[in-house]
């Protein structure tokens, strides 16, 4: 059943601008193509046939930060890599979102030492944290769906509404 049956034969659908913008943003959210460590393997698993991330409009990884909306930090960030991650984030065009995938990206994980940044939120602002070492593809997909729900709550001025609690 398509939208034309619901809308009758008037050829017109009415909605708010905010809803349309958020709908388009969250249903074609292209991630930036880069993986830092073993979590990237699970990220690739989430995008390939068994888990099929393209169901959520995210099948294309962009190799250029200019064309990407979402940065999935998949893996531990070393202190030498941190400026590179920040630079990639700065090159992405607004609006942009960050998912910290895995324990290492979220808080340093098992690597509490001189070489690893203790959580990528010291480098870039993070929207969704996905726990796991590494997270299974279902967990990553759940994190992405959470992010979609967060985007759907955005106002046009950039503020985010509180989620409706039932």
């Amino acid at each position, binding site marked *: 059943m398509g939208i034309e049956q619901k809308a009758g034969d008037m050829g017109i659908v009415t909605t708010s601008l905010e809803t349309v913008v958020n709908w388009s943003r969250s249903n074609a959210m292209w991630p930036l193509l880069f993986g830092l460590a073993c979590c990237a393997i699970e990220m690739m698993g989430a995008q390939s046939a068994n888990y099929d991330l393209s169901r959520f409009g995210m099948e294309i990884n962009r190799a250029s930060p200019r064309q990407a909306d979402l940065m999935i930090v998949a893996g531990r960030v070393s*202190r*030498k890599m941190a*400026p590179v991650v*920040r630079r990639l984030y700065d090159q992405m065009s607004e609006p942009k979102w960050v998912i910290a995938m895995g324990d290492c990206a979220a*808080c*340093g994980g098992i690597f*509490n*030492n*001189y*070489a*690893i940044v*203790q*959580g990528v*939120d*010291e*480098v*870039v*602002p993070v929207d969704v944290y996905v726990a796991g070492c590494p997270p299974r593809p279902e967990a990553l997909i759940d994190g992405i769906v959470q992010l979609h729900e967060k985007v759907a709550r955005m106002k046009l001025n950039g503020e985010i509404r509180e989620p409706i609690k039932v």
Partner: protein
Amino acid sequence: MDNATVVARVSESFPRAVVATSEFRGDLSIVLRPEALVNVARFLRDEPGLQYDFLENLCGVDYLGRDPRFEVVYHLISFTSRHRICLKVGLPAQNPTVASLTDLWPTANWQERETYDMFGIIFSGHPSLDRILMPDDWEGHPLRKDVPLGYEEVAFTINQEQIDAHKPYAKE
């Protein structure tokens, strides 16, 4: 080629260079005086019959509390005689300096930089002794035994707020 021959030829040509020798399961280690290292290494590389032509690796060791505190370990292989030996030099805690082997084996270049980066051992005569693994603005040498192991206090519910208070979160 056997270990006794190598020791005999080195001590014959450099009577004052060898501090000690040891053998473990057939592998020979020779402890040298730091100032004799380059000459002995060149001798081992060029002398007919020895020809240790490949520097397999080199690394630093920190024996905190021992004198000399630091040690640099070199592994040499002779492809012609199919034999492997290990050279060691002990270095003091204050200003540990040893001559660079980059003139003999170019492969020493990056490995000496790594040893400098991790232990702060100075290789005099190295063409560009900069950090190779850590960021340039890093202070200290992380593999020294007096550098603390953990970087950040482990967070539990009891101290989560204290850690959060001084954690450098990124801005937009």
